[in-house]
């Protein structure tokens, strides 16, 4: 801004008749960009969207970055005997549960006995299913701020079983964790297969000599969800409370002082089996997103993918947005890109960037899902709990192609599943250092293709690039307008005209901050309320707060007819600057949120302009602009966008319960400490309100 000011001063000087001195080229470039900001903002925004659409084309094949991993270089040592051990455990559990209906920890004890027979050290851990409670200070806090609740009831608690195999010659400094979530009360047949796989592997690992890291097998009690038991176990592992816990007295199973540990965790694999595969092969789905869009090291995914595809013949997939696969506009884009790629290939055979339209569709659907999961900031599985402790972890969901009661297939399935895990563990076991070689910031377009941060940053950068330009040009315009009105050019330029606008922007951001914190107080309101009621409470409080702000502070209301209200151009300029800062900050915290937020916020901010003059002028162009900005502002309202995206994802719009659903969604966001919630409350909402103010500006 200062540079622009100076240039203006220089230009003014030249107008006075002194010889024309050209400013420096970089300054000239800046002036040029600012002067033509409408064209450039359109070009840059379009380029940003195009770059986003091009991302599937730019995806690179994954490769093993860390040489020490050496996946698949050792022959599998897993024998049929081990696999039949696994089958035996699954059969025993099934029989046991048929004979012993009901509660108790007998199944856990049975698994514990199996583990100790294999030579593992067994420990049981009780945990309490913790309710989701919003606390504004829990954002970004480390997990050790976890406090034990005082009044623990014995009515509901879960029991985890963990077995540790000590590496024969290892020094016990590091460990690898295997997690199998299993519902001990009503776990299905498929679920118990995951126990079979890991138990086959465990039986092998208890006698191998090559282990250098201890192996922990955690059977998490998934009665209260997959995530909670793993998180509780990790909390106990990393930050135990040495004080006496009421939970310990609850049952005959004495778990006091029983907890065992095994060094720093190197990696963790969560194994789940569910459902039958729709394909001919067994399907392996990889889930990697942890809280706030954190990803495990790409090498971990690479190793699993390599072994699954090239050694064990699984069909590997990652989550994708299915509805995008059938979208026609994406199909058209894919075909265009394919045609361009073919054309380029004919021009120069070395240019091979074109991919078939079908691949493009698949890639975009996966990319969209990857972006969405990262942007949401909610972990996609129990592996998310590990990321809080800087442990690389992924969830492997295996879907067999046979019904769960087929014995012969089951044996083969155990053999292959356990061999996949064996290979992965062997690779991680080879690793002397922790994972650090490969990428941590990436988006997946298929299990074997990724887009690194250097590439996907471009789309975002292009998208937000117009913001400072437009802000600068609007500021100059606004200043000029002021200058004309007051006939005192020199004073006005140096004056702090933007300060009024900045005050308004700041006030609305403060309001956003308060609105963000409101749910905490609403949760404190005594009595049971449905999510709908709570959202209504929230809505009314927020809007009344907004009204109070408008009424009490003069000159803030867009509806006030005061003439020396802030100039809308300056206000928009400051708004855009604030949006730019907010988006850039968010891109550091959670890139995907910033990307999606920018897609929404940048056009809204750029298009926003007062409707009144447009209506007055009755010109087609200005009317169209006003209409566009109205539509964009409507879409930009978070609740509206939520409803629209629900509709796009195939779920029908549900009129009245929308508020309730939105509330539940937000509740899940803050329960997972997602920074997206903060973004919506503290960047998106204020900027949207400011756009609204500009829209209804009286000028």
């Amino acid at each position, binding site marked *: 801004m200062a540079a622009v000011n100076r240039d203006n001063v220089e230009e003014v000087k030249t107008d006075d008749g002194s010889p024309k*001195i050209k400013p420096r080229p970089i300054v000239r470039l800046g002036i040029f960009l600012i002067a033509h900001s409408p064209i450039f903002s359109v070009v840059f925004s379009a380029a940003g969207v195009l770059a986003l659409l091009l991302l599937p084309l730019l995806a690179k094949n994954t490769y093993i970055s860390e040489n020490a991993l050496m996946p698949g270089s050792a022959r599998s040592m897993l024998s049929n005997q081990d696999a039949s051990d696994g089958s035996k455990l699954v059969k025993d559990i099934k029989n046991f549960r048929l004979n012993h209906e009901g509660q108790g920890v007998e199944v856990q004890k049975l698994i514990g006995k199996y583990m100790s027979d294999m030579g593992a050290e067994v420990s049981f851990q009780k945990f309490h299913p913790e309710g989701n409670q919003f606390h504004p200070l829990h954002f970004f806090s480390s997990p050790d701020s976890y406090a034990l609740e005082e009044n623990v009831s014995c009515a509901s608690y879960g029991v985890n079983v963990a077995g540790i195999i000590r590496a*024969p010659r290892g020094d*016990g*400094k590091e460990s690898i964790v295997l997690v199998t979530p299993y519902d001990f009360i009503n776990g299905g047949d498929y679920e118990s297969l995951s126990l079979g796989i890991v138990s086959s592997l465990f039986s092998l690992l208890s006698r191998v000599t090559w282990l250098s890291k201890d192996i922990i097998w955690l059977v998490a009690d998934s009665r209260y969800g997959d995530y909670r038991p793993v998180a509780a176990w990790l909390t106990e592992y*990393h930050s135990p409370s*040495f004080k006496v816990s009421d939970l310990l007295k609850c049952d005959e199973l004495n778990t006091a002082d029983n907890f065992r540990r095994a060094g*720093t965790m190197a990696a963790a694999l969560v194994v789940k089996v569910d459902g039958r595969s729709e394909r001919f092969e067994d399907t392996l789905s990889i889930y990697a997103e942890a809280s706030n869009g954190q990803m495990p090291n790409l090498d971990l995914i690479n190793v699993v993918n390599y072994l699954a595809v090239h050694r064990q013949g699984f069909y590997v997939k990652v989550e994708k947005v299915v509805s995008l696969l059938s979208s026609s506009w994406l199909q058209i884009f894919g075909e265009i890109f394919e045609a361009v790629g073919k054309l380029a290939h004919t021009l120069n055979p070395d240019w091979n960037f074109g991919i078939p339209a079908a691949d493009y569709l698949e890639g975009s659907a996966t990319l969209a899902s990857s972006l969405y999961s990262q942007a949401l900031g909610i972990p996609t599985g129990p592996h998310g709990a590990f990321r809080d402790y800087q442990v690389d972890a992924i969830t492997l969901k295996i879907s067999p192609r046979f019904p769960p009661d087929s014995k012969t297939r089951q044996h083969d399935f155990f053999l292959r599943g356990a061999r996949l895990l064996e290979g992965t563990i062997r690779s991680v076991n080879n690793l002397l250092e*922790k994972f*650090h070689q490969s990428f941590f910031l990436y988006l997946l377009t298929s299990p074997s293709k990724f887009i690194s941060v250097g590439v996907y940053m471009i789309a975002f950068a292009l998208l937000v690039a117009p913001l400072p330009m437009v802000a600068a040009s609007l500021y100059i315009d606004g200043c000029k307008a002021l200058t004309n009105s007051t006939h005192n050019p020199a004073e006005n330029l140096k004056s702090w005209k933007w300060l009024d606008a900045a005050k308004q922007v700041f006030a609305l951001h403060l309001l956003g901050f308060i609105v963000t914190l409101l749910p905490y107080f609403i949760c404190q309101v005594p009595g049971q309320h449905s999510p709908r009621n709570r959202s209504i409470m929230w809505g009314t409080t927020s809007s009344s707060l907004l009204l109070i702000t408008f009424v009490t502070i003069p000159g803030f209301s867009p509806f006030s007819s005061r003439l020396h209200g802030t100039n809308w151009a300056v206000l928009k300029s400051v708004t855009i600057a604030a949006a730019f800062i907010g988006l850039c900050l968010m891109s550091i915290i959670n890139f995907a949120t910033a990307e999606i937020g920018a897609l929404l916020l940048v056009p809204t901010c750029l298009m926003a302009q007062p409707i009144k003059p447009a209506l007055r002028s009755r010109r087609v162009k200005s009317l169209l602009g006003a209409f566009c900005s109205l539509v964009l502002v409507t879409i930009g309202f978070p609740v509206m966008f939520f409803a629209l995206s629900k509709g796009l994802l195939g779920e029908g719009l549900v009129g009245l319960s929308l508020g309730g659903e939105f509330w539940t969604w937000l509740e899940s966001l803050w329960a997972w400490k997602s920074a997206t919630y903060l973004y919506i409350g503290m960047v998106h909402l204020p900027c949207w309100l400011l756009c609204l103010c500009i829209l209804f500006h009286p000028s």
Partner: protein
Amino acid sequence: MASLLRSLILLLIVQSFLVAIAFGSNEVEEFSEALLLKPLPDRKVLAHFHFENRAPPSNSHGRHHHLFPKAISQLVQKFRVKEMELSFTQGRWNHEHWGGFDPLSSMNAKPVGVELWAVFDVPQSQVDTSWKNLTHALSGLFCASINFLESSTSYAAPTWGFGPNSNKLRYGSLPREAVCTENLTPWLKLLPCRDKDGISALMNRPSVYRGFYHSQRLHLSTVESGQEVLGSGIVLEQTLTVVLQPETTSVESNMQPSWSLSSLFGRKVVGRCVLTKSSNVYLQLEGLLGHELKNVDTEIEAHELWKNAEFELSLKPERVLRESSSFLFIFDIDKSSDSEPFDIGLTWKLPSKWSCQQAPLHASRFLMGSGNERGAIAILLKATESQEKLSGRDLTNGHCTIKANIFQIFPWYIKVYYHTLQIFVDQQQTTDSEVLKKINVSPSTDKVSSGMMEMMLELPCEVKSVAISIEYDKGFLHIDEYPPDANQGFDIPSALISFPNHHASLDFQEELSKSPLLSSFKENSLVRSYTEVLLVPLTTPDFSMPYNVITITCTIFALYFGSLLNVLRRRIGEEERFLKSQGKKTGGLKQLLSRITAKIRGRPIEEQSSSESPAAQSSVLSSKLIFKIILVAGAAAAWQYFSTDK
């Protein structure tokens, strides 16, 4: 010739006389070897090699020795070592299954890697120098990086927490040292028969290193003679403890595996080392089966003991000794020969189960917290089952207490906050003074010295668990202080938990002069156990970062200084005047550019009078420029053509 012969005879006589004197005074160098075998409850077998070399205090040989290794005696003389212990260990000692309350485990359960401590007999000011020199000497002697202990950041001077009370004691350990055969070979070189003969011939490298645990230890102590003339004698004790897994053929999982020396080591003993005074093999059986056998009649006991319904030994023992809970079978390997090698074996016939005696408290240590900033170290002491049976309780003040000393070293980059020390006894937080009797802390200094903490706890006997936690901050290292593989993390050496009131000893009621191994068992040894080594992930820089930093810093500096210089140096008004006076004698290229821009903008060119004809100049320039462009384009086209053609 004759005179030469005579002198030779004389020399021989004198020498035999001297030898006679030496023998007469019963002060000869002695070497003895022993092997103790012990089946462990978790189906493994422990083999403990014990070699003792005694050099009596004498000055009769000057600096020469018959049996005693010269390297060690030189070491002792040069650095005035009073007592020293060096151990190389791989694997972890399993306190639950392999025992924690017998002399074997309290002396041979060592922390992973290298551990060295030494007491010097030099003035206080020279102790550190002696230590540094000693580490270098040992480093060369044992092919290990013991010299890393030289740095003052890696060793400490414990006062009372470690064991021997001395202010001339230095202690250091290297947890990451990889132990292998290159360390064993120099260790074997110190033996008179090396590994060529006698018990040490069993040390087949692959079988030794295949084991679950192996620890080679060298302990030396000087014995003061009390006479000025004689100087001091040295006792060198070398032990190798291995825990092996015998190959099992039995299908039954609860049956103990049968084994023999040849199946364990792949070798047999063909005779003793001729230089030894005694050479014995012991087999120790402990636990339940001993108690059962006590009921057997003494008449048939001798026979029944080694061949009964439960197990069978392949050789008849020379003698059988009995301790309160264990039996010791003694074999002499003198009788073995090439044709009939010594190969003791144990065959189990019935499944049997027993447990080892354990230390009063089982210690484990772990890290708490997450993230790269803060954390805490916690030590958890849990009561073991055998605690009730233990003797050695301190019954002062009418109630029974267990004393436990905790000694730990923290590297300087683990910045421990000693005030955050918290002690929980049976899950109740206690004020420090209740159980903490004594504490000695020496805080670390950044990049200069490591921190050390010695604590003495006095716990009630009925204690179930004790938790001690202390918080720390992770420090930042300078880029060149990072070791290789910095991304693995940094090690905190093992803590040592010792129980000053508990002493382990095995007394077999036997005349002890014969066997140094048994006499060392009889000595009261302090019960101690080492905790795990901890791995702390520290923030590591991206090691290609300096390059990036240099690049970006240079760019910023260039931009900053460039513009600053411009602002400071250039005087716009002067330049304008100069420009005016010069009549815009600008460079040709600039002029051309200005023309082009003017044309683009559609404004007339500000005409200026020039000495040269501008048209001619511009035409010359433009032709040059066009030529250049054509040249570059041609080169690019040619390159493209040739590159694609291939």
